């Protein structure tokens, strides 16, 4: 039961000064979709543009030198944050690009670890975000490989009962989410990675909902790749990360082709620079990388352990509060164990869209719909859910507001 000093934290985020509809304060419960940004991140981007802006890696002038130092400095910050090597960190535009990058690299070669042919299997789960599902469907389509998946139990956990059948010598890729963006479930990754590695499969982790919320150590986890987005962790939009083991990145084919990712080029062919460069074609999203660096510095100052404890407290409080509401069903684990601060629920006779709309009148921002996890919705027999998700700037009063808001919604719709 430990909580952060939310008032002090909120003061760093300019958006909380904004008045919402009906002059309400902002109760932002949509960090699972995207987080708000502290002044420190905005200032870092601004200072990049107004003091150091130039194309990195290509110039001998002072600004180019400073821009390169800032950009590569951000890479060091990211590497340290997840306990990886600097050259293992690739900047992309988003987790979506990071995952697609890996999937395309598999079809850009037919040699070595990244060869994939008919009969091979790709294993995902039923609780994947579309970003960690469709790229693999399409890779399967392009190569003739077969897509398989872990199911979900009715209480919203990964169903590992069929793991002995699902992970076999045919399994070449296991792509799985660290924490579900719908259920809040945190999956037992180390165990799955261990099983996958016994058959030589490559393990890709969708860390979009984990890296922002608790300490993720790539050495500990034992996975081969992780993907996450800056905008969900106080960073700017337009920046994502792909971390991959050095040996795999070295072997992997590039994805986007263009400037700065080459070793040598003729009209007929080209050879590639070493990783991470070979995956970063073109003038990169420099200011956004620098902004992400500032976001991580901010998170580290507060402390990832402290943030995690804070969110656990909020989650337990919210689970308790929501379960007092008649006609409300939580979709996902009912306890706060192995579970992050994302809570989806359904309310009898009121569609999520209508719930969201009424809550909005009280300044409460939640997400409604299928949350880019349509197969999971079908599994739970709903067309969508209402989802509240928490971060370091939320406190207990936000959850009280949510509970009151839902009660008011039920009254409004007379159910």
């Amino acid at each position, binding site marked *: 039961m430990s909580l952060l000093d939310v008032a002090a934290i909120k003061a760093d985020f300019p958006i909380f000064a904004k008045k919402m509809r009906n002059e309400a304060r902002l109760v932002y419960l949509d960090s699972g979709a995207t987080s708000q940004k502290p002044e420190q991140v905005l200032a870092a981007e601004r200072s990049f543009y107004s003091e150091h802006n130039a194309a990195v890696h290509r110039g001998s002038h002072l600004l180019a030198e400073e821009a390169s130092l800032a950009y590569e400095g951000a890479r060091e910050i990211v590497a340290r944050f997840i306990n990886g090597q600097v050259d293992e960190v690739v900047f992309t535009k988003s987790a979506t690009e990071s995952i697609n990058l890996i999937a395309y690299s598999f079809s850009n070669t037919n040699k070595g670890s990244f060869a994939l042919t008919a009969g091979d299997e790709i294993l995902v789960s039923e609780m994947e975000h579309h970003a960690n599902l469709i790229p693999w469907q399409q890779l399967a389509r392009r190569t003739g490989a077969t897509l398989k998946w872990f199911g979900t139990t009715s209480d919203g956990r990964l169903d590992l009962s069929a793991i002995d059948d699902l992970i076999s010598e045919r399994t070449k890729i296991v792509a799985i989410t660290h924490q579900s963006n719908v259920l809040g479930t945190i999956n037992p990754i180390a165990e799955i990675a261990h099983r996958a590695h016994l058959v030589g499969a490559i393990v890709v982790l969708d860390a979009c909902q984990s890296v922002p919320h608790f300490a993720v150590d790539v050495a500990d986890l034992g996975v081969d790749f992780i993907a996450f987005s800056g905008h969900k962790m106080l960073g700017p939009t337009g920046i994502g990360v792909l971390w991959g083991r050095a040996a795999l990145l070295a072997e992997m084919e590039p994805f986007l082709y263009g400037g700065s990712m080459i070793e040598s080029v003729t009209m007929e062919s080209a050879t590639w620079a070493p990783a991470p460069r070979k995956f970063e074609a073109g003038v990169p999203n420099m200011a956004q990388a620098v902004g992400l660096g500032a976001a991580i510095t901010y998170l580290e100052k507060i402390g990832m352990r402290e943030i995690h404890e804070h969110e656990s407290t909020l989650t337990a409080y919210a689970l308790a509060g929501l379960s007092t509401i008649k006609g409300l069903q939580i979709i996902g684990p009912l306890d706060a164990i192995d579970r992050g601060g994302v809570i989806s629920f359904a309310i009898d006779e009121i569609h999520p869209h*209508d719930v969201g709309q009424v809550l909005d*009148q009280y300044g409460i921002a939640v997400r409604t719909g299928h949350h880019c996890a349509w197969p999971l919705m079908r599994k739970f027999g709903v*067309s969508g859910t209402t989802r509240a998700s928490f971060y370091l700037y939320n406190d207990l009063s936000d959850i009280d507001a949510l509970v009151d808001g839902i009660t008011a919604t039920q009254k409004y*719709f007379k159910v």
Partner: protein
Amino acid sequence: MELDSLYQEVILDHYKHPLHKGLSSQMSVQVHHVNPSCGDEITLNLLLDGGVVQDVTWDGVGCSISQASSSIMSDLVHGKRVEEALTILESFSELMASKGSQQGDEAVLEDAVALAGVSKFPARVKCALLGWMAFKDAVLQAESK
């Protein structure tokens, strides 16, 4: 509260007691439309005969706005000549695009003017249009048969 302009009494009534919901077995065409951003779906059966909308029935899941709007739409076009139905649709689309600046012509739109408030909530316009777009698509398909 701003909300009352969105959820007018007549909308909540249609939502709780939708008209023409439940698919009839007789039809010229069946269409299925989804709203990809929220997952709402509608299946619509259209029976067209002699240039007249003989029957429109539908089924699906959706929010109060999309359900009420489909209910109102199906009742409104029922028995109308195709051209007239499309004129109503035109007029409704215009109302939805009006960003709160229009009230809607009650002579043409009848109950559908209750949806005027939706146009102030851009994220909800596609809810209100879901059934109408399905109807339009069905007409086009039926006519090109």
